């Protein structure tokens, strides 16, 4: 067992892990942050997507020991004391979630897209969001929600 520190939204979580414990398992069990979900454990479905040093990463393919000391952001940190951020609000308004299992991963991936600050046209948006699986929504409303946020921040990719 090793003692590591996972820095999640500036809260340091001191946890003891075995090297084989995945980042997502450690976030869920060691840090009590169960918002990130496990859908396949082989890097395909994206339900475990979190941001590590601002980059979207499959939490099931990274060992917790590898994330020692890195900046981690999960779905729990998106809202402002209960108030939805722009993406959460857009998902809510556009009915971009049904069972909600894929939602945290979708939100973190979308967060990266929005934060990147680059124009994104519809094809590119669809391609990036194709990184994550959803079984309930058929994707249409998820794309609409992210598009709405991108457009609102001027990243509509019209010139792209």
């Amino acid at each position, binding site marked *: 067992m090793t003692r590591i520190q996972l820095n999640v939204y500036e809260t340091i979580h001191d946890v003891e892990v075995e*090297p084989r414990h995945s980042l997502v398992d450690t976030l869920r069990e060691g840090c009590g942050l169960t918002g990130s979900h496990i859908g396949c454990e082989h890097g395909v479905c994206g339900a475990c997507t979190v941001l590590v040093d601002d980059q979207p990463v*499959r939490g099931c393919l*990274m060992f917790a020991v590898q994330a020692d000391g890195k900046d981690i952001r999960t779905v729990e940190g998106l809202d402002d004391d209960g108030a939805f951020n722009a993406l959460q609000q857009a998902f809510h308004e556009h009915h971009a979630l049904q069972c909600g299992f894929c939602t945290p991963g979708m939100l973190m991936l979308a967060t990266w897209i929005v934060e990147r600050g680059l124009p994104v046209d519809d094809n590119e948006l669809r391609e990036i969001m194709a990184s994550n699986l959803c079984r309930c929504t058929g994707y249409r409303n998820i794309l609409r929600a992210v598009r709405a946020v991108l457009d609102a921040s001027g990243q509509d990719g019209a010139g792209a």
Partner: protein
Amino acid sequence: MKPASFEYVTAESWDAAAASLAEHGDDALILAGGQSLVPVMNFRLAQPAVLVDVNVIPDSAYLQIDGDSLRIGALTRHVRFEAPGIDGPLGRLLPRIAHHIAHLPIRMRGTFGGSLAHADPASEWCTLARTLDAVMIAQSVTGERRIAAADFFHSALATDLADDEVLREVELPALGPDWRCGFAEFNRRAGDFAIVQSVAAIELHEGQIVSARIGVGGATETPQRSGAAEKALLGGAPTSELFAEAAGAAADAIEDLLTDQQANADLRRDLVRVMVLRALEDAVSAG
């Protein structure tokens, strides 16, 4: 699907990585991006006793033109190739290939060297390396070894790397301005492993093809160059007819095609013809 237990070691340098491998032999595996290795470990198909994490080795990720070579650090992440910042036909080709590798989050972590060392038959970088006769530079405690691409890929998921060797750098020829390079792949869904892919590189001089490298991946256990296609192209003009002929030659000549759930040997043969043709067309239109 949790992996079996292992001891975790971080290597601070390539020498340290090599030393760990020497110490543990075939009980140790290198952890680079983990995007290929960790799924295999989660399925418990690989159960290394020791994992040597090379991610913190400084100066291990780079794309550097050095004379007539492009030197690629093994830890260079796939995403870096989407904007490689190098000139010439290779600089234009790399992003077009990188774009096809899995999905964005995988590209954030997966590495060039990792893909080569893993040697999945459908790996884009493996096909590129084979097509352009890359040189793989492996390091062990006894020193450095340069391995030619033709010798590097043994079979699916098996390379010439010894248990105590770690892949440190790869050299690609820095193709000059007369070259045109193209890429094509076919898969069932965006981001899937390619069923068949092709890298095509042709050198033109006064409207004639003076050199040709045609590579096919995903179709057989290891990526291979198509001598038949290259022969068909040499000395000819880059026309659709010639490309179709070369593609046909590639398809006719290829042997030991893979059969799996996604495609059988027959379908792969058809796809070889289509992908080689598309890669050639891509070379002249975008390359």
